[in-house]
């Protein structure tokens, strides 16, 4: 588990100090994946680097499994570092060592004896699906393979926490998939707590349990992805759910009610709306939206329009089934917003 409290970090810049982190607090529960998102310069890497003990924060505390990291030094610091695996934003493999040699580095640091080291390295190569690349040098690996070697290296000393900074930023969608699969297994099979920095919402969609949105060094949104998705107006929802913005107002003309509904975890999303219509004898049209998947959970957002006397009852019924219903103004006067 990672607990960050009130973290502040400034850098000297040309036009005065740059506040990279401005009182960041967040928590990554054990065995979950937190996605840290935000625009370029928001402070994502600085946050990851502070937790990785590569930057010393100006103020605030960082605890990993209860140990306060900020005050450590010497051997205690090195021991704490072994609990934290780091996949840096930039390519960081030793180019003069093979894939296996790179993965062995943390094991050398932990003074793991030779035979055990070999054994562990081959386990890790297998975990990231690169058993056949053990003696290949980084320059002969593809970007995705290099990234997986970096992940294997970060995991070598069996850390309880893994920090990955933009692990998929330079990769095509398919390779991104293979790297994300590895991170997912790291969480579910090894129980490692993962913090992944990304600007790609697809990463959040695929593997993250929690999300923290950073803006100008501040956390502006933080919570479970599935909770935030149904919170009206959340950034997470607008970024992850199917778009509705492009639906023109004209389309809602002539209906009695227009509403946006968000459904999370419905196995039979397709059946819900027709049933609502037939039960209440209303005419229901889909104006837009669609379905998607968050990790294993199906989620949907639709804009629907209803006509009929019992339109409100139908919406209420949908809401009672667990959907988040938000009324939209129609072009017909007198409807609730």
């Amino acid at each position, binding site marked *: 588990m990672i607990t960050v409290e009130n973290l502040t970090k400034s850098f000297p810049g040309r036009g005065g100090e740059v506040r990279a982190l401005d009182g960041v607090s967040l928590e990554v529960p054990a065995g979950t994946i937190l996605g840290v998102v935000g625009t370029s310069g928001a402070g994502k890497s600085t946050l990851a680097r502070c937790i990785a003990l590569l930057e010393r924060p100006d103020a605030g505390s960082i605890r990993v499994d209860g140990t306060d990291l900020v005050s450590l030094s010497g051997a205690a610091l090195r021991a*704490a570092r072994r609990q934290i695996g780091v996949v840096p934003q930039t390519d960081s493999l030793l180019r003069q060592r093979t894939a296996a040699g790179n993965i062995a580095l943390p094991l050398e640091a932990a003074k793991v004896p030779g035979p055990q080291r070999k054994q562990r390295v081959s386990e890790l190569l297998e975990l990231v699906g690169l058993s056949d690349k053990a003696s290949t040098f980084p320059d002969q690996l593809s970007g995705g393979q290099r990234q997986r070697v970096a992940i294997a290296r970060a995991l070598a000393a069996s850390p309880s926490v893994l920090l990955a900074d933009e692990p998929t930023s330079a990769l095509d969608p398919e390779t991104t998939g293979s790297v994300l699969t590895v991170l997912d297994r790291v969480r579910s099979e090894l129980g490692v707590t993962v913090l992944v920095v990304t600007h790609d919402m697809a990463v959040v969609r695929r593997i993250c349990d929690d999300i923290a949105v950073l803006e100008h060094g501040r956390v502006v949104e933080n919570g479970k992805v599935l909770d935030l998705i149904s919170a009206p107006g959340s950034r997470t929802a607008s970024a992850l759910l199917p778009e509705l913005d492009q639906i023109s107002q004209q389309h809602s003309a002539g209906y009695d009610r227009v509403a946006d509904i968000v459904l999370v975890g419905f196995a039979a999303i397709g059946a819900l709306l027709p049933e609502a219509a037939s039960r209440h004898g209303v005419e229901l049209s889909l104006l837009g939206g669609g379905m998607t998947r968050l990790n294993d959970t199906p989620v949907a957002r639709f804009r629907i329009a209803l006509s009929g006397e019992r339109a409100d009852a139908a919406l209420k019924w949908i809401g009672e089934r667990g959907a988040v219903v938000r009324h939209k103004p129609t072009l017909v006067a007198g409807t609730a917003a």
Partner: protein
Amino acid sequence: MRTETPWSTVFELLAETGWETLYMVALSAVFAFIGGLPLGVLLHVTAPGGLRPQVFTHRVLNFVVDVGRSLPFVILLIALLPVTRSIVGTTLGSTAAVVPLTVGAIPFLARLVEGALREVDTSVVEAAITTGATKPHIVRGVLLREAAPALVAGIGVTVIALIGYSAMAGVVGGGGLGDLAIRYGYQRFDTRVLISTVVVLGVFARLVQFLFDLGARGIDRRRRVTA
């Protein structure tokens, strides 16, 4: 018109002085490596932003290395006479020349080592730091290892510089090819010996360059630009 030295004598002279040069250069290269490598590492790790920044130590080392590099070798040769005497027991001969050669080459190599280490990517070093490795381990297992091709090339450059410095060894009776060129070519206007010496020195330098290039490339695992 003077009679030129017969070819058979030229070859004898070249063989004899060639060995002297080889002896002086090889021996001082080994000592320069032993002294220059740690000094270069120290320069690198004590620098601001290095593994173990030490402003004062870094300044002192920088100063010493700069002075050592800027002194003309002949001056070093003479200035070090007392030191040479106390180490070798004499100030004359090839072995005596090894002392100033080594002292001259150490700062030269140290700078090259520092430059080679600086080329190692910061993110690679940071990644090593995050593994919880100790600093000596990072120096050995990461910095020196990643910089190995550049280090080999740097040693090659140092050896060639030593061949150049060793021409001055005649001043202390160290002999060598350079001394031969000065004695016969400059003092006796013997063009045959002069040119032969130049050719041998050139071949020698070329060979050193070739071997070290080969070594540097042989151990380099990075992708090469193939034109």
